[in-house]
């Protein structure tokens, strides 16, 4: 089975992704945290990344978080993309900032 290298340009991290495995799952399995993890189902938009180089297949993603115009530009959800070549990605939301940036009430913190 083929293996692909994923390089996260935002954080400088590299990890291996197996053929048929989602980028987010590959990252999680290696205990890395360079992309924020939410629902893992293409529904919440937490794991949004921009693919700068490389080819991939897409699973179903929420249109709200991955509208067709954005997908065209390589803005996709890491939990729903499956590399076909090595990939260079960058975070759309910074990993640490990602959670803090969401709109949940400041009152709850």
């Amino acid at each position: 089975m083929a293996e692909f290298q994923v390089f996260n340009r935002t954080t400088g991290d590299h990890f291996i992704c197996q053929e048929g495995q989602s980028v987010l799952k590959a990252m999680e399995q290696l205990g890395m945290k360079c992309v924020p993890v939410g629902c893992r189902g293409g529904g919440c938009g937490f794991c949004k990344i921009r693919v700068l180089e490389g080819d991939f297949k897409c699973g179903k993603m929420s249109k709200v978080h991955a509208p067709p115009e954005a997908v065209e530009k390589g803005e996709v959800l890491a939990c729903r993309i499956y590399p076909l070549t090595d990939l260079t990605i960058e975070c759309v939301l910074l990993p640490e900032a990602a959670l803090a940036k969401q709109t949940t009430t400041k009152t709850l913190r």
Partner: protein
Amino acid sequence: MKKGVMRPGHVQIRVLDMGEAVKHYTDLLGLIETDRDDQGRVYLKAWSEVDKFSVVLREADEPGCDFMGFKVVDEAALNQLEKDLVDYGVEVEQVPAEELKDCGRRVRFTVPSGHAFELYADKKYTGKWGVSSVNPEAWPRGLQGMKAVRFDHVLFYGPELAAVYDIFVNVLGFYLAEQVLDPEGTRVAQFLTVSMKEHDVAFIHHEEKGKFHHASFFLDTWEAVLRSADLISMTDTSIDIGPTRHGLTHGQTIYFFDPSGNRNEVFCGGDYHYPDHKPITWKAEDLGKAIFYHDRVLNERFLTVLT
């Protein structure tokens, strides 16, 4: 004061892929498929429920929750509640009988948090699944996965909790069972009940309208919650957090996601509520413990990942 709203009756959940979703809700959660309609929606129920369905799945390109429905005691109560909503200034929409198969007319309205609710009086009574109503056995054989006992409650995220409270408590006759207050005394979470349960529906303050946090299903025992955790691993299902205990309601719980990223909960236990009970208050400063009683720290994903 009770106004005739009886219990949570159904929830319609949007999913990205119907095949994957049905497999999740039946094979893993243990719901039973009871029907499908010409819009492609799939109807499901948990075994101990007496009506035909409680969960409706609709394929869409964005996951989340379309609406939650409450069953009211009878048509007279439905008419009165409809009138009360209109008098209170809530816009109501008529959904004709059979728009959902084997369900009577529904009165739909949207509350200021951006969530749609429905009231209805009639749905086909099919009885508990797999057990007789005469000399029933303890439980039915042939249940799958977690063997969810019943659809229990929904937690929504949205703004304007005070206005939502007014509609649920003053118009619909719910009681505030538990709340979270911030240091200024503003209610940032409200757990509302029309029954002895600690909550039939709950809201947490969030700027964006109409967000869905989770739909929850009841299990009998802590053992069943642990077994559910095993099944989540066996099926490589996306887990959120647990098994653990909540401070709020004191229920024992585990959270996970359906294949479209909607959060589910299965839980057991929890406190009870009578109409003479005063609300329980948790301080927002202690929200970590209020939500996850053992960890006592806020879990960011639990607070912020929504559909």
